[in-house]
């Protein structure tokens, strides 16, 4: 089980208490009151309105308005409607959903029930990555408890509302975290994103209207329903309300999870909460939101962690996975690791992504081996530019952005490799 967050707020305040993972413990902490309120006292439209007003943005990386997304679901019940909970958490550097499932599975189920009421969904599929064996077992236990207690099933909390939750374990592919790749995999097919249109709200899981939300997104919902949109807006920034659980990893003294309001400055997270860089070294660069987000150099860490601010520095919040690298880090080596990951994980449908990720990885590796040429650097940027925004899903963008970020801020590292015809970093191991 993962260490509970060092800094907590409403999402994680009870996570240090093992009992909170059980139905009894969750109820003792006030759990399922919001669901009862939503199911017995609010119309779907009212729920959606409150969530819209709260300004909750999806916490899976894209940051889309959750209330708006719910409103895309068709009305009426000609076809069964579904929710899908994206528990694939495949973004390297991200491990917040894991703690939310390990230590607060009922909080997630409560959020799912409220979202189900809002969207008219009859069933939720929780798609959880294959590597998450323990979180999956916690979820399975909580789902069983909920069925036994009448919180799931034909008559949820005696409200007359029916809802089922099905847990589906994936086999561990990055692309299955993309919402339509997830749906394909859920259906038992090869995990590769679907072309859009049609969008999941029209044609989702098994061809039925479906809304896909991230684990953390669901977890915020009971608190919004219980305390109101105004309360929620008391956290975070005006445009990015609420908290999030930042996962900090890499060269820091205290790696782990920290629930902080959106808008908390990145340098505060790195140096205060995560304890700064060990061994008296200096920070070189920080990836702010999971591996696909462009890196920021040491001099640009005074930025509030909210998309409206991060965008000004050409990066994004992503999944809030903060990855810290100290001054001994070879940024070409970083590019090599990242580009290998994306080359390996590309589903291979779209030309730009299939061929571009492989080509970029080969060029970067060649530079790292000391066989790079001066023109390779601009060619990398050109290739990244040609991959961006041209494919079925955002994977190609996710593969292009980190390369663009590394060249934007650490071009000197690349140039030293080319000029010296070898990697200048002593600790850089062989590829």
């Amino acid at each position, binding site marked *: 089980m993962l260490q509970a967050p060092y800094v907590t707020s409403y999402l994680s305040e009870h996570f240090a208490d093992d009992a909170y993972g059980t139905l009894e413990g969750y109820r003792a902490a006030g759990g399922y009151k919001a669901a009862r309120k939503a199911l017995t006292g609010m119309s779907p439209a009212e729920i959606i309105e409150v969530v819209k007003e709260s300004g909750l943005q999806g916490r899976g990386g894209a940051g889309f308005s959750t209330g708006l997304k719910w409103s895309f679901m068709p009305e009426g019940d000609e076809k069964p409607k579904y929710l899908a909970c994206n528990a694939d958490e495949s973004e390297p550097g991200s491990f917040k959903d894991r703690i939310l499932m390990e230590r607060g599975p009922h909080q997630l189920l409560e959020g799912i029930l409220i979202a189900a009421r809002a969207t008219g969904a009859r069933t939720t599929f929780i798609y959880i990555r294959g590597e998450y064996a323990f979180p999956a077992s916690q979820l399975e236990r909580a789902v069983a408890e909920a069925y036994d207690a009448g919180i799931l099933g034909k008559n949820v909390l005696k409200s007359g509302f029916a809802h089922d939750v099905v847990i589906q374990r994936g086999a561990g592919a990055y692309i299955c975290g993309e919402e339509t790749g997830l749906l394909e995999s859920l259906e038992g097919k*090869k995990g590769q994103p679907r*072309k859009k249109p049609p969008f999941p709200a029209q044609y989702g899981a098994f061809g039925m209207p479906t809304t896909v939300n991230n684990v953390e997104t669901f977890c915020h919902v009971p608190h919004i329903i219980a305390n109101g949109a105004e309360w929620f807006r008391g956290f975070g920034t005006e445009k990015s309300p609420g908290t999030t659980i930042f996962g900090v990893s890499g060269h820091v003294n205290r790696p782990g999870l920290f629930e902080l309001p959106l808008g908390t400055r990145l340098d505060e997270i790195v140096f205060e909460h995560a304890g700064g860089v060990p061994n008296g070294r200096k920070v070189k660069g920080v990836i702010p939101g999971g591996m696909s987000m462009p890196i920021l150099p040491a001099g640009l860490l005074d930025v509030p962690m909210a998309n409206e601010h991060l965008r000004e520095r050409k990066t994004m919040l992503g999944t809030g996975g903060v990855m810290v690298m100290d001054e001994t880090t070879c940024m070409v080596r970083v590019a090599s690791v990242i580009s290998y990951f994306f080359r390996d994980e590309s*589903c291979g449908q779209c030309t730009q992504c299939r*061929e571009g990720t492989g080509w970029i990885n080969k060029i970067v590796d060649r530079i790292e081996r000391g066989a790079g040429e001066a023109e390779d650097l601009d060619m990398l940027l050109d290739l990244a530019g040609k991959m961006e925004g041209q494919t079925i899903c955002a994977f190609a963008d996710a593969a292009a952005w980190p390369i663009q970020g590394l060249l934007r801020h650490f071009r000197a590292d690349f140039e030293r490799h080319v000029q010296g015809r070898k990697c200048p970093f002593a600790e850089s191991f062989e590829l």
Partner: protein
Amino acid sequence: MPRITIDDVELEVEEGRTVLQAVDDAGLLMNGVEIPHYCWHPKLSIDGSCRLCQVEVEGMPKLQIACNTPVQDGMRIRTTTDRVKSARAGVMELLLVNHPLDCPICDQAGECKLQDYAFEYGVEGSRSREPRRALKKNVDLGPTIVFDQERCILCRRCVRFCDEIPGTHELAVMNRGDASVIETFPGQQLDNPYSMNVADICPVGALTTRDFRFKIRVWFLEDVPGVCTGCANGCNLHIGVANNKVHRYLPRRNDDVNDTWICDEGRLSYRRIGAADRLREVQVLEEDGGRRVAPYAEALSSAAARLRGLLDGKGPGVIVGIASAHATNEDLFTFRRLLDALHIETAGLVVVRGAADELLLKAERGANGAGARALGFGDGRVVVDRIRTGAVDGAIVLGHDILDAEHLGGIEALGRLDTVIALDSHQSSLQRVSHASFPVRVPAEKHGTLTNWEGRVQRVEPAVEPRWEARSEGEVLAALGAALGLEGFSEAWDPREVSRALSEAVPAFAGIELASLPPGGAPLRTPPGRKGRRAT
């Protein structure tokens, strides 16, 4: 109906279509509106993965793929802007990064979309210094198709074809990213009656047919439009000809007949044209039962004399006519006129039948059964029975389908007749009992029309010229009429004139003329009855 503008072309399009579909519907795709594409195919589901068909849509910040962008009224699309050109060039460069560029030894060269589009939309030279992917070469996917994994650009048309058209699901993309390869499922072969279509829809030289590969460079081939004669469906063909030899059949798109497909059996039936068993000589039967090659004129007068003898002795009632589904409407119309002029009333169509499928293949293994019926040739089984029971003395027989087990099952019954006059394109035991035997042309060797099972009349023209003395059935029958001294029959026989006479004489053919028939054919005025429509 929504109106859209593509560059300077305004189109009224059907609701619910995508931009690429709308352009294709209008017949303008790559024929006025240039939207290059690989994964999209008009008869397969939309894939959206090659990303080559990106266009600029006014009001949308990103480029959109034309294949999957639904049309909206007032939509303005640009296909020639710098952004579009740069995106296309980007796709082309990336597709070539791992392509072996072995065009000099690739069968597809000359009709390769990768080659064509690289020249048209790509950039010169490659910036790649990296080693290319090494993958499997010369893979036997099944009995008909050979696969080169390195040439494959993963458009997945072949995978969708097997999933969606024959529904046999043999192929899939294995692995992912730049390790993706197309393979058959373990233990399976690509083996279905339509398998060779995957080679046609493969835009590159990755999938080639065992039949055609390494035979001839495609730029030596002349493309003659034709119609498959393997069954009553009448699938449209591109006949590939060089040095007076047919080297291949490819399906020619006709949405009313065969979409873009053809069955493997039909595709390989081109081999019958130049086959060793073609009937090449006019033959007559001597009194002692021996066969002899004879001059055409001699055989004609011999046949006329025998017929005249029977007519004068026993009357037309002892002579029957057997029509063939392998002859054209013009041939059969001349036959009809000859029979009528001789007052021969017992005549019918005899054709071999086989299994039909739900896609294209029809039970009737002949291209013009419906034409024969439209010209009054009824079910020939009645005629066959009369021959079998010895109720007739003479027969004019087109083709040798009558020897099939379903009909006479051999030559014995015909051997008992006083007079058998046979016209056929291929050798068979029929010649052993024919008093006069004439070699005739197959549809790929002559002008004419064929009527498919649905009553669609389609045109054929000579793709090759027989290297021996061969005529159309109509020409032989017209000359026979002349030799019999019948009015209105002469040795000169022009299928265009016959077609005109046919369209005037037979109401079902009104308005349908060889000279003016559109490339996709035209339906008969009176479509065949339900019987003709039955698949089996």
